[in-house]
């Protein structure tokens, strides 16, 4: 990609949706790597833990700590990440080329609440 795309405008804080345009979360941070003098965006980070760590300060640390404790124990530690290779388009929303159910590591709270609380209510429908 040679045309100029600002990571600040195209990625950070933008709405992330899955292949079916279902909202997943916001792009709370990005992970960079340095390769032969070129900075690359490797993955996007999703969730309040990433956002809290990015904001910093007492409030940010508190948010990150709460979010880290709300993450399911089966998930790897640290903020949830999505490989940039999964991004289909930037405009108008950042859209992935995979459906939500295949992204096992992101939005753990959404899945947990759906499975343990909301799906059990009559007429709530199914999450997937």
């Amino acid at each position, binding site marked *: 990609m040679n045309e100029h795309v600002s990571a600040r405008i195209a990625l950070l804080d933008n709405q992330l949706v899955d292949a079916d345009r279902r909202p*997943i979360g916001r792009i709370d941070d990005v992970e960079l790597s340095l390769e032969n003098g070129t900075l690359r965006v490797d993955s996007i980070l999703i969730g309040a833990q990433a956002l809290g760590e990015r904001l910093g300060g007492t*409030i940010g640390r508190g948010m990150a700590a709460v979010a880290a404790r709300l993450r399911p124990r089966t998930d790897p530690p640290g903020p949830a990440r999505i490989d940039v290779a999964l991004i289909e388009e930037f405009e108008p929303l950042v859209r992935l080329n995979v459906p939500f159910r295949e992204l096992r590591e992101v939005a753990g709270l959404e899945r947990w609440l*759906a499975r343990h609380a909301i799906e059990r209510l009559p007429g709530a429908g199914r*999450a997937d």
Partner: protein
Amino acid sequence: MKPSTLFAFTLGTLSAIGGFIDIGDLVADAQVGARFGLRLAWVTVVSVIGIMCFAEMSGRIALKTQRPAFGLARSRIGPRYALAGLVGAFLVTALLVMAELSGVALALELASGFHYLLWVPVAAAFVVVVVWTLPFKLMHRIYGVLGLAMLVYVVAIWKLDPDWSTMWRSTATPAPVPGETWGAYLFFVVVLIGAQMTPYEMFFFSSGAVESRWRPKDLAEMRINVIVGFPLGGLLAIAIQAAAFLVFFDLGVQVDHISQTALPVALALGQVGFLLAIVGIFAATFGATLETLFATGYEIAQYFGWSYGKVQPPARAARFTTATLALLLISAALALTTLDPITVTIVAVVFSAALLPFLFVPVLLTANDRELMGELVNGRLANAVGSLTILFSVAVALAAFPLLVLTRAGVS
């Protein structure tokens, strides 16, 4: 006009009434009418113009971008400022959910004679059932139609056969009545602004536009909703002030209970009028409970990018559904602590007034972004009215807390 357009027109218009008249208005208008007559009626006119301007702007942003105004805020002004806005807006709307829910319970107390605290859990359960079972549009339509019962206030004023020249003299005198201080007068300016220019109306209007899948071609329909709905709400607000003026002012009666809001109608129109007023109060507070509840859910969901809203099954918006249900439970619990709903309302609307500039400025900036808005970018009229509203709201915001403290919430 096609039948479908007419249908959508009544729908949106009715929901705009429901959004404008809520517990804050019912309390503030009756208190203001009893103490100051119509000397604060100009504030309602200013509020209506201001909220129309910003509802139209946020509606236009939603049409163009298919994103609600608050949803855009975070990516445009950064997560820090947006978080501060979220916390402020959340505290105010969450307090209002509790106050509106108490309002529903108070309307049921008026109808039944049983103490309102008994009705709080019933009202909360009723909210859950309605939200869970009725589709978005039908839900609006029902409380919108019932809310039209509030027009009984306008009828009551004719029936009370007022001296119109006295009414006009009061309206044309923007100053405290003898025996009242400027501090108290200005405090109630803040209260009326906070009660009538409520940010949740803006969030709800733009999120509702997104949920109803309005597109740029629906611009005229959106504007009709704004142009008819909010002035009608303002008319009802002034009618409540006038009714309280006619009945309470000369007697020097202080309004400190919501039943007094309905009393002028009962005096003018008897039992039927009283019943209609209760139906109107019930519908207005019930509609406002739904709107504040959803607006709070929207604010959180949009900040964190969660899926939200009523158009999909609740299980596909699990975080949003859980957050709104939790908020409703907390509000009901808060109402059951016997905290006075009228005091909570007054405090909430003063905070709301203080927040206005912080919530208006991002909307004005976004609506002026030519790249984003294209042909729907703000024109001169929207910018002029919007800027004046912001200037006025800055003055109100600066004065809000000093006046709250100095006048001890309008007591002296």
